[in-house]
Structures are given as C-alpha cells and as structure tokens.
C-alpha cells in the first residue's frame, strides 16, 4: 500500500483556479489555516484562463446602469437566471476587481478595452492570463496558504452526513493524500469531454462528479456552451482561447450569409445552418470593416495566439476560414450549471461543503451566456463568498473525524484502476465518449430519440467500461478518474436535456422547438438517490416570470427553427 500523507487543515480548497484562489485568500483573511490542492498548478489552472479574455465589472462611474444590466441578463438568459445571484455578481464585481487591482493586476480601462459596451450595457475589461495567474499564485503564497500542486483529488470524505475532507493522489509519486478539513470548498468544476484540439482538456467535471457522489444537488446541465473554432485547417484564431465570440460574418456553402445576432453572441446559428446541410460554414473576413479588422488584430495580440501566427492567419489579409461546430463540446453554460448553492454563501445541501467558480451553479446568467467576461467575474464572486462561508462554518465546526471503514472504502475506489490487470484504457473510453457526445446533433440540436439512444450508450459505458478502467501509473490513474467523472457528467447532461421538454436559450429540442411558459420557467435539479439519478423541476419564483401577456415573439426575440 502507498505511503499516506495526512493533511489537516481548517479549510480545504480543491482546485486552484481564480475561484479557488479567491476562496482560499478570503478564508485565510479570517485567520484560518487554509490549504489549496490542485491537479495541475494552483494559480495557473482552471477553466477561467482556458477561456478568459475579459472580466466583467459593474461600475456606475463608467456610465453603467444596474437596471439595464439586469434587464439585459433577464432577457438574454430567457428569464430563468437566478436574479438574486445576477444582482449579487454585478454588485460584488467592483470589489473583486478592486481585490485584483490591490494584488497588482493591471487592466487597461480605455475606451476600446470596455469590450462589449458598444453592443450591450455591460462593462468588460481586458484580462491577460499571463499577467493575472502569477499574481493569484503570489497572493496565495503571500497570504500563508499551503499549496499542494499536482495532486488530483478524486473523492470527498463524508462522515455522519458531513463533508470532512477529501482523498487524492499525486502525479509524481506513489503516495496517497488524505485531507482532513473542517470545511471544504470545491472549485474544480466545468466539464468538456476533452475534445481534440480544444484548449479545455483539463476540464473534466471532477467537482460536479465528486459533489454528486456525496449526495449534493446538481443543476442546469442541459444548456450547452457553444464555442466554435475557425479552422484552416487548424483553429485559426481563438477569440478568447476557443470561442467564436469575435466575429459575425459567416457564409455558407452556397454563398449565403449565415446571420448571427451580433458578434459577441455564440448562439446555435451555425449549428442550425450545419444541420440544414449548408456547411461548410466559412468565417468571412473580407466582409469585415477596417475598424473590425483592426479590433480583431488587437485582440489577437492580446490573447497570445501563437497558433494563429504559425498558420499564417492575419485578419488584415482577409480570406475565408473554415468553421467547425461544437468546439467546446460538452461544456455546459458557464456559471449556470453546477452544484446547487443553498444560500448566497455558496453552501450546499451537504454540511461542510461549499462550491465556487464553475462548480457553483448560481444560474446567474440563465439559459444563455451573454458576453465574454462573465465567467471570471462570477468565479471571483462565488470564490470569495464560498471562502468566507467555509471560514464561518469552520470556525464553529468540530475537529473532523474520519472512520477507518469509510477511509478504506475510498482507498479501494481510488486505486481500483491500478488493481485491474485487464479491462479498458481511459484514453479509449474517453475517445468513445467524445465520439458519442460531441456530434452537434447530440448536444446542440437535440431530440428525444437521439438523447435516449445516447443515454443508453452512456449507461453502458458507466456500467460496463468504467468499472473496468485500467491504470498502470498515477498519470493513467488520473485519466481513469477523469474518464469516470466525464461519463457521470455526460449522464447528467443527457438526463437534464431529456427532462426539459422545450427549447430555451442554448437548449434546443427539435421535438419541442418553443419555449413553454410558464411550465418551464423552472430549473432542473438532480441528485443521487440510492444509486439512481433523480431529477426534479424547481419552479423559479413567480415574481421573476416574464410578462405573460406580452406576445411570445416580443418576450423572446430569438426564433428557433421549427417553432
């Protein structure tokens, strides 16, 4: 058996992204002993910087208006945003922005850096990964937070109904890590299915999966993220490391324009065109105005797009670039999906467990991601709140006690793939999972029959392949646990998608192409009940309903095909 490292701490933060760093720093400011554990490197890791190029800040002095911001999110989120959280994120964003400034961050707030202000009522400032990540790291170190890098936490420890720590293993040695904590913040959320070529392969939904296994509630997995890639033949330019939220001129194979709503929106327009047999869809730079080309070039320089240079991509030269669907395939709508927080301190239904970042299903953006910059801000806000919430809980919590029986069960689960001499490699199972889930007609253009068929395959993966995953070393052990977590996330996505028998925002059902008000002015919430995934529908508060006397076409400016 492996050497055991027992780490005792007041607040354990799993995942050292922007959310995890905020949580740890805020908990530490309360005078508690805090530990961050990350499967890569705390400060640099996480979903935010895979995608992030903007940071949403609400500041009235920049001419921003809270009512206008709220209204825009309500309409774009198609009325199922949690308005309490929408307002919290707007209001807290200024303080989090100030935190980042006080840690040494630089944001150029000039006219052209308020990225979306021309189109939407929000203020989004530019953020640069290479400038922000070292600051997050140094601030956590400076605060006296213990950091454990390159250790993957695979499960939470639960004792007497409470989360009291976690179990994990390192990449570089054979030791086992047992974390005993009075409170735990999970900030290891967001899943994709490691799609080949997307810069988001570390996002395997470990947080949601771990939370689910201890009985926490998960919400809103049915809304897919819609990130696409310019391909020529490789991703030509990653607007924000992988989104098409950069440009609006598309033409189809017949030379017809494919109209998107505006340049920052990544809706399902391209998938609809693809589905109708109008592909290939080309990203048509020749149609851009000189100002737009200039803006695009600036943003390219900003987003460290080495690859674009390498394939000779220069917007100034114009041209048409191939666009491929389903780039961020598998990722649910940022900040909407995740573990259901039971209060505004980011507590969950399981005592001792707090959630932050993409792991925290605040639903503050509802059914649609409105613009770049909302992910990093939402993650800073929930990170900060979860850190404070966990600190408050830890201050009155008893010393965590972990029973031998519980521990030995989890140890067996942790090392099971190492015990299997024969079975299935995590790489192969992941590839099967990708081929099953990623096609546009599964996650983006949905239909009951296809969802059911894919669910049957995923259940088979879950029941037959996952229990027989093999790992020869700790690197493969990480892959095995990630694969298991991704399969579980896939099941959540499919079941939520099946239950929501309507279309709304980024969730489109070919067999139910209209919004169904008021029946679906509701969220889907799921949890484990004796080994079964149980789903329920939670109505949104009536005061958040849209005006139902308003004609449907005005309530919902966007049309779905077939409605």
């Amino acid at each position, binding site marked *: 058996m492996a050497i055991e490292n027992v780490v005792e701490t007041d607040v354990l933060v799993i995942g050292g992204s922007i959310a995890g760093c905020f949580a740890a720093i805020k908990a530490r400011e309360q005078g508690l002993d805090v530990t961050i554990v990350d499967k890569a490197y705390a400060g640099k890791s996480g979903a935010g910087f895979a995608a992030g190029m903007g940071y949403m800040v609400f500041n009235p002095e920049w001419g921003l208006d809270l009512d206008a911001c709220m209204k825009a999110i309500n309409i774009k989120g198609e009325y199922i945003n949690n308005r309490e959280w929408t307002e919290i994120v707007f209001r807290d964003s200024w303080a989090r922005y100030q935190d980042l400034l006080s840690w040494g961050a630089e944001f150029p707030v000039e006219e052209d850096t308020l990225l979306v202000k021309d189109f939407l009522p929000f203020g989004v400032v530019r953020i640069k990964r290479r400038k922000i990540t070292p600051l997050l790291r140094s601030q956590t170190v400076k605060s006296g937070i213990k950091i454990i890098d390159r250790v993957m936490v695979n499960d939470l420890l639960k004792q007497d109904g409470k989360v009291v720590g976690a179990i994990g293993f390192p990449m570089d040695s054979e030791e086992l890590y047992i974390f005993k904590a009075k409170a735990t913040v999970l900030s290891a959320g967001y899943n994709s299915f490691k799609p080949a070529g997307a810069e988001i392969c570390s996002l395997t939904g470990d947080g949601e999966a771990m939370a689910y296994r201890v009985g926490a509630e998960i919400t809103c997995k049915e809304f897919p993220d819609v990130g696409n890639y310019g391909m020529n033949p490789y991703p030509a330019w990653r607007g924000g490391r992988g989104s098409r939220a950069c440009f609006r001129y598309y033409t189809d194979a017949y030379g017809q324009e494919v109209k998107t709503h505006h340049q920052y929106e990544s809706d399902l327009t391209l998938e609809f065109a693809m589905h109708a047999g109008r592909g290939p869809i080309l990203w048509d730079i020749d149609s851009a105005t000189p100002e737009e080309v200039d803006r695009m070039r600036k943003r390219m320089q900003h987003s460290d797009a080495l690859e674009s240079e*390498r394939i000779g991509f220069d917007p100034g030269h114009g041209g048409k670039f191939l666009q491929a669907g389903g780039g961020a395939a598998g990722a649910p709508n940022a900040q909407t999906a995740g573990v259901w927080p039971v209060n505004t301190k980011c507590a969950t239904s399981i005592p001792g467990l707090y959630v932050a970042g993409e792991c925290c299903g605040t639903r503050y953006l509802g059914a649609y991601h409105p613009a770049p910059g909302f992910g990093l801000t939402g993650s800073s806000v929930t990170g900060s709140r979860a850190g404070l919430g966990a600190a408050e809980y830890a201050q009155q919590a008893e010393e965590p006690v972990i029973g031998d029986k519980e521990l030995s069960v989890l140890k067996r689960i942790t090392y099971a793939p190492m015990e299997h001499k024969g079975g299935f490699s995590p790489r192969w199972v992941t590839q099967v999972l990708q081929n099953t889930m990623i096609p546009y007609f599964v996650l983006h253009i949905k239909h009951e029959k296809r969802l059911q068929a894919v669910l049957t395959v995923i259940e088979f993966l879950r029941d037959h392949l996952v229990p027989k995953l093999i790992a020869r070393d700790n690197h493969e052990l990480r892959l095995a646990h990630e694969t298991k977590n991704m399969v579980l996330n896939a099941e959540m996505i499919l079941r939520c998608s099946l239950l929501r028998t309507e279309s709304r925002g980024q969730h489109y059902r070919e067999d139910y192409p209209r919004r169904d008000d008021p029946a679906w002015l509701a969220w889907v919430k799921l949890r484990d009940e004796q080994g079964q995934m149980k789903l329920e529908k939670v109505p949104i508060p009536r005061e958040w309903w849209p005006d139902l006397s308003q004609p449907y076409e005005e309530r919902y400016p966007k049309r779905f095909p077939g409605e």
Partner: protein
Amino acid sequence: MTIERIDPELCNGCGICVNSCPVDVIRMDKESQKAVIKYPEECMCCDYCELDCPQDAIYVSPERYVPHMVAW
C-alpha cells in the same frame, strides 16, 4: 504535432513548463534534470508551456495529435 520539442541545449531545468501544463504532458527527467515530453497525445495546444518558458526552448506546433475532422 502538438508540443513538438523541448530543446535540451536551451532548457535550464527550471520546471516552469511542467507546472504550466494543465494536463501533465511534460515531466522532468530525473537523470538529465531537463524537461521532457512524456505524454504528447494529451497536449491540447494551449501554448502555455511555450509562452511561459524563460529560455524559449519549447515549440508547440498547431497540428493536433488527433487531427480535426469536420462534417463536410
């Protein structure tokens, strides 16, 4: 293809690239004390290692390990 090379002449063994990689592609070679490409099949071309390398010792090719397939 993906991370293509880490130049052993330029690599000073600082290990920054190992920590920059979100998916554990790069490891330190115990004998040479230099960074080596251990699992190229998992590289996602995020370029973080190349961008963060103080020695400019790394080159990441835009080609993917598993080539892209498009629908037409």
